């Protein structure tokens, strides 16, 4: 766990669960798996508090436990799980688009509570929905249950393993009663697919249609007829057109979709690895472009394409004057986007008689960028907290005023009195509040955007590591 990641985890834990949980959590992340007493001793907190903190963490699937030999139970925190907390808003949003409000509320409840039984979830969600609906109508439990079942089918929601009720109070494995938890791993599989769907949509307007419906199916290869059958009704695409779209997708130089065999009218498969590689490369290129300029981006893409290239050739291919090309190459080299490969002509490696080739190693550049992303999000969160802290007094005042107004409205106060109370907040203060709200929102949105980059890069790195 790098420093940046640990910092980010600590900020997230603090924001969501408070100081004590943060302390315990960070300690566990730093030191790996530890038994209960050692944690209490090292962090200097009372045993009671440690137990409560661990409870919270386990409930939210951030810490897992294991029984080791001699009956010692050790707790281990998973840093990646903590970092997933950044992605909760995106999960909720995806569920909302796919399963409307009911789904959204279900997922939200589960994320807030870590684990819940199905009946508890259904009850809560139904009650919430009933509140928002018009008077007299109540939310049907069955409907909520249905949505729940659908969520479970598509792996948004997953059941926890249950523990046999043993008399022995030793917290051994396997864990609890039938409660349910958001399966985060699969959770981001579905958003991943729809993200690619969105990516394709942006690629060119004439190639998107067939991409989206196919992406929803988790099978490995799909054939022509199945695609045709599973298209949503409103699309209105004839079979020939669909065929053409599929051929176009398969022929595309980006190679997101591959054709493997002609049985059943053509079997199509998504090349996830290639797709991730292209997306990661595009991310890198976009960062280079924004940081160094479009000429640098040209050089970067050139080196990517040619794999290894000499400085003189860079000038020729990219059609950029020699001095500028040199400058840009060195800048990118110093920022670790590129690396140098030496090929000596003579055994004594004399610099004047060596070839120096520039090359881009996508994996290492992706890792470097990922690290930068973590630090950036940590910075953004810190800034947000700083801004809030700066205006704490103002925020408290406005909250008090709101509370007063609400209570007065409840007791039926007059218009004039309400006006008076409202004027307790002066105009410039109101302005300040507005600015604060806007800033905080902006920082929040920015965190989510950087998280998108993290998602792409992490998926690419994971996929590449698995293949090796």
């Amino acid at each position, binding site marked *: 766990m790098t420093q940046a990641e640990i910092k980010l985890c600590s900020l997230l834990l603090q924001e969501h669960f408070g100081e004590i949980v943060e302390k315990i959590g960070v300690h566990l992340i730093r030191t790996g798996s530890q038994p209960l007493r050692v944690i209490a001793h090292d962090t200097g907190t009372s045993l009671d508090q440690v137990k409560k903190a661990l409870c919270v963490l386990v409930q939210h699937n951030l810490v897992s436990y294991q029984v080791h030999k001699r009956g010692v139970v050790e707790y281990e925190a998973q840093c990646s799980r903590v970092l997933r907390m950044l992605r909760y808003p995106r999960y909720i949003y995806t569920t909302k688009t796919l399963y409307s409000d009911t789904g959204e509320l279900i997922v939200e409840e589960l994320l807030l509570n870590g684990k819940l039984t199905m009946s508890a979830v259904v009850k809560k969600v139904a009650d919430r929905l009933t509140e928002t609906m018009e008077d007299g109508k109540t939310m049907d439990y069955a409907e909520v249950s249905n949505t729940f079942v659908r969520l479970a089918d598509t792996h948004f929601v997953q059941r926890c393993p249950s523990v046999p009720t043993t008399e022995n109070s030793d917290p051994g494995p396997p864990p609890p009663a039938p409660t349910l938890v958001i399966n985060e791993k699969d959770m981001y599989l579905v958003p991943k697919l729809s993200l690619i769907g969105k*990516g394709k949509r*942006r*690629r*060119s*307007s*004439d*190639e998107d249609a067939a991409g989206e419906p196919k992406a929803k199916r988790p099978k490995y290869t799909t054939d022509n007829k199945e695609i045709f059958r599973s298209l949503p009704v409103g699309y209105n695409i004839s079979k*020939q*057109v669909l065929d*053409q779209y599929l*051929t*176009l997708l398969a022929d595309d*130089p*980006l190679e997101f979709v591959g054709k493997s065999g002609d049985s059943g009218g053509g079997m199509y498969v998504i090349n996830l690895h290639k797709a991730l590689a*292209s*997306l990661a490369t*595009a*991310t890198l*290129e*976009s*960062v280079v*472009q*924004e*940081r160094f300029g*479009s000429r640098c*981006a*040209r*050089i970067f*893409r*050139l080196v990517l*394409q040619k794999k290894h290239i000499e400085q003189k050739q860079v000038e020729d*291919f*990219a*059609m*950029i*004057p*020699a001095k500028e090309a040199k400058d840009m190459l060195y800048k990118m080299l110093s920022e670790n986007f590129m690396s140098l490969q030496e090929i000596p002509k003579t055994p004594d490696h004399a610099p004047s008689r060596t070839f120096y080739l520039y090359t881009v190693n996508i994996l290492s550049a992706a890792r470097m*960028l990922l690290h*930068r*992303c973590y*630090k*950036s999000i*940590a*910075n*953004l969160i*810190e*800034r947000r907290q*700083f801004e809030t802290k700066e205006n704490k007094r103002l925020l408290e005042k406005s909250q008090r005023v709101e509370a007063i107004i609400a209570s007065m409205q409840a007791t039926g106060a007059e218009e004039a009195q309400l006006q008076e109370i409202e004027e307790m907040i002066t105009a410039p203060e109101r302005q300040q509040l507005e600015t604060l709200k*806007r*800033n905080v929102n*902006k*920082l929040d949105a*920015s965190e*989510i*955007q*950087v*998280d*998108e*980059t993290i998602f*792409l890069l992490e998926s690419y790195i994971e996929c590449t590591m698995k293949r090796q």
Partner: protein
Amino acid sequence: MAEVKVKVQPPDADPVEIENRIIELCHQFPHGITDQVIQNEMPHIEAQQRAVAINRLLSMGQLDLLRSNTGLLYRIKDSQNAGKMKGSDNQEKLVYQIIEDAGNKGIWSRDVRYKSNLPLTEINKILKNLESKKLIKAVKSVAASKKKVYMLYNLQPDRSVTGGAWYSDQDFESEFVEVLNQQCFKFLQSKAETARESKQNPMIQRNSSFASSHEVWKYICELGISKVELSMEDIETILNTLIYDGKVEMTIIAAKEGTVGSVDGHMKLYRAVNPIIPPTGLVRAPCGLCPVFDDCHEGGEISPSNCIYMTEWLEF
């Protein structure tokens, strides 16, 4: 009885006549004539007279003496050139010939010295002389800017020396390249637009959004923005830069030999494309572009709390 030996004087034994005949012959065979040919033409002239005539013509500068595998060749010298070289001595003629042989690639002064075996001072003097007579010129090579190559005055320097269409006076013409870049891109973009709007079935849409390199070349030639004549390879290098910009993609298809624009049985097609992702999330935050990112930490001089880039960005 005395035998009268009548020496029949051949009618054209007159030296001038001989020279004129030889010159006529040279005109007849502009590539040069051998001694044999002259002998066949005028069999009655003795070898000595022939030699005298030829020597006179050579010294007058009207004939060129060349050596070929079959022997010596005499060629009529271009009268213009003949006038030029009057007043130059043999060394200069030698140097001039060496430079002429170098063609349009030019030759470096050191190479001239090696070929002519003349000392450096002589060479420099001769080169200066020839330059002032406007017979040769010095061209700076774009590869090594200190080197000067010499070539005949009226010759166009070869592309490898001047760098081709992209260099004018050893300066890389970046604006020219930029302009061409944009024009090509606009052309391809508009083609893709029309294809998309035609709303036909997707296969046709995609195929009609392609343009071959030949088409682009014709378009650019017709636009007439280039003073220099551009070849198809030049246009292809420009299109390659567009590929490296990520705006254009290329495919190669097999084409029949006869079709317009095909080279070695295949054609290159280009098409404008959209980028696959918009600017990524990291660069939308100020941290992604921050130059002092590595120095930033909480509690330091540069920290998120007092980051000026963030302040600016938030006010935006």
